[in-house]
Structure formats: structure tokens, C-alpha cells
């Protein structure tokens, strides 16, 4: 493989890493190859991914994960179904879970935790509001009875999101 093609693959492996780290590393690999007169034999994408584990993803990408998790969490609040019975809140809960796992995979523990909190926050707010006005809600929306069991389920799934982010972020095998 030519050096330029190799470096291009390294960059792909480092997707999500801050540009300055990416550029510096590619320059370093290029200088090393120039000195030794050979293109590295290491799988370039694996090398890039290993360096992503070292540097982590950029702050912009972390923030993107955090911010996007909030509306996903909001849309997963099951009480929306009181107003819109056909609303796929469970689907959004699944999407939010996948989003948290992605944030944890790319960004590590802290990123997974914060993304999980961001997704759980609107659910917890919804839970508190509906807990306080449970009787009122049940009297208005007669077709959608909120029970203590449902509230507990929402609490559990909400608490699961940050926990999942934290645990999944710690499971990433750091390169040796």
C-alpha cells in the first residue's frame, strides 16, 4: 500500500478525534515511514482506532452526543402516549439507549454517563410531573391509566441510561 493511501485509512480509523490530534499523528506516521523507508505493516484502521482510544473523541462530538440525547429522551417519555396513543415512545427509548452506548463506545465512561443523564433527565422530569398529578392525569385521560408500576418502570429505565453509559464506557478494551 502507498503511504498516502495508508495515511488515509489511518485517518478513517481516527474518525471523531479532534483534527489537531489526527493531523499530528498522521504527520508522525508519515515521518516515521520516511525515516524507515517502508510503509507500516500494521492495519491502518486498527492503528487509527488505537490512537482514538488514546485521544478520545473531540469535544464537539461529545457535545453532539450529549445534546442529541436530550430530545431522544424527551420523545421516549411514555406519558406522551396519553395525548398521542400511537406515539412510538418505546422506539425512542431504544434509540436513546443505542445513542448512549455509541457515546460510551466512542467517548468512554464520562461521555457515556453524561449522555445517559441527558437522555434520562426529560424522563425523570416527566416522571415527577406525572407522579405529582397522577390523579389529575388519570381523571383527564381516562383511556391511559398511569399506575405506580408504570412510574416505577419509567424510573428504572431512566436510571438505567446513565448507568449503562458508565458501565459500557468502562468496558472498552484499551489498546496495549
Amino acid at each position: 500500500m502507498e503511504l498516502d493511501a495508508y495515511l488515509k485509512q489511518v485517518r478513517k480509523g481516527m474518525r471523531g478525534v479532534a483534527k489537531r490530534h489526527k493531523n499530528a499523528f498522521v504527520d508522525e506516521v508519515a515521518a516515521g515511514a520516511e525515516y524507515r523507508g517502508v510503509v507500516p505493516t500494521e492495519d491502518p484502521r486498527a492503528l487509527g482506532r488505537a490512537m482514538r482510544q488514546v485521544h478520545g473523541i473531540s469535544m464537539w462530538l461529545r457535545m453532539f452526543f450529549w445534546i442529541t440525547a436530550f430530545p431522544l429522551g424527551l420523545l421516549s417519555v411514555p406519558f406522551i402516549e396519553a395525548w398521542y396513543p400511537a406515539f412510538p415512545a418505546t422506539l425512542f427509548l431504544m434509540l436513546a439507549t443505542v445513542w448512549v452506548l455509541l457515546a460510551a463506545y466512542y467517548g468512554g465512561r464520562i461521555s457515556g454517563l453524561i449522555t445517559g443523564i441527558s437522555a434520562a433527565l426529560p424522563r425523570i422530569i416527566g416522571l415527577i410531573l406525572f407522579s405529582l398529578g397522577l390523579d389529575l392525569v388519570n381523571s383527564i385521560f381516562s383511556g391511559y391509566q398511569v399506575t405506580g408500576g408504570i412510574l416505577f418502570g419509567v424510573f428504572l429505565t431512566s436510571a438505567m441510561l446513565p448507568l449503562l453509559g458508565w458501565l459500557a464506557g468502562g468496558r472498552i478494551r484499551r489498546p496495549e
Partner: protein
Amino acid sequence: MARRPDAVSELRRGALELALLAFLDRGPSFSGAILDGLAEATNGGMALTEGALYPALGRLEKNGMLEPEWRKEVEGRRARKYYSLTDEGKERLVQLSKAWAELADGMQKLIGGED
């Protein structure tokens, strides 16, 4: 399924940080020269691949053990990233060297059957 590294690779991996710090204690160096120099200095015992070297250097730099400096030594050639030990790196080298000596001594006694 990921292949399990063999025991020899595991041993090398454990000694990698110490090897890099000890090599850079001789003077600042850059990745290409470290790869060749380390293999030569250890009679091939620490012949590394780029996949092991770069992340290890990156971690040491991130942890404040190494100080990087870009140097353009020859016109028309690419600038090289030189690494040198920081004070923290020097302290770490002393710690690891001591631990290594104790470990090697103990293991030698065990393997050699000395009392």
C-alpha cells in the same frame, strides 16, 4: 473473536513502558528511530510494531511522562516528533526500574532454582 496474545507478547507488553522510558532517557528520539533503536538495544527482545509503539507513546505523552517537540532537521524532509522525558517521566523510570530489578531478581531465583 479476538486472538489471545501469547505469553511472550504479554511479557513484552508489560515491559513496554519501562523500555520506552529507559530508551528515551538516553536522549530525545522520534518514532522511527525508537522502533529501530529499541530493537537494536535489546537484541530484538523489544522489537515493536507501530501498533504497539504509537499508542504507548501517546499514552505516555498524555500522562505527562513525555514532552513532544516537532523538529525539522533536514530541508525537504518531513518534520519529526521528538519525545523527551519530563521530570515526571524520570521519576516513573526510577520507580519502574526498581520494580523491574526486584521482579527480575526474584524470577531469576525462581527459574534458576536458587534458594
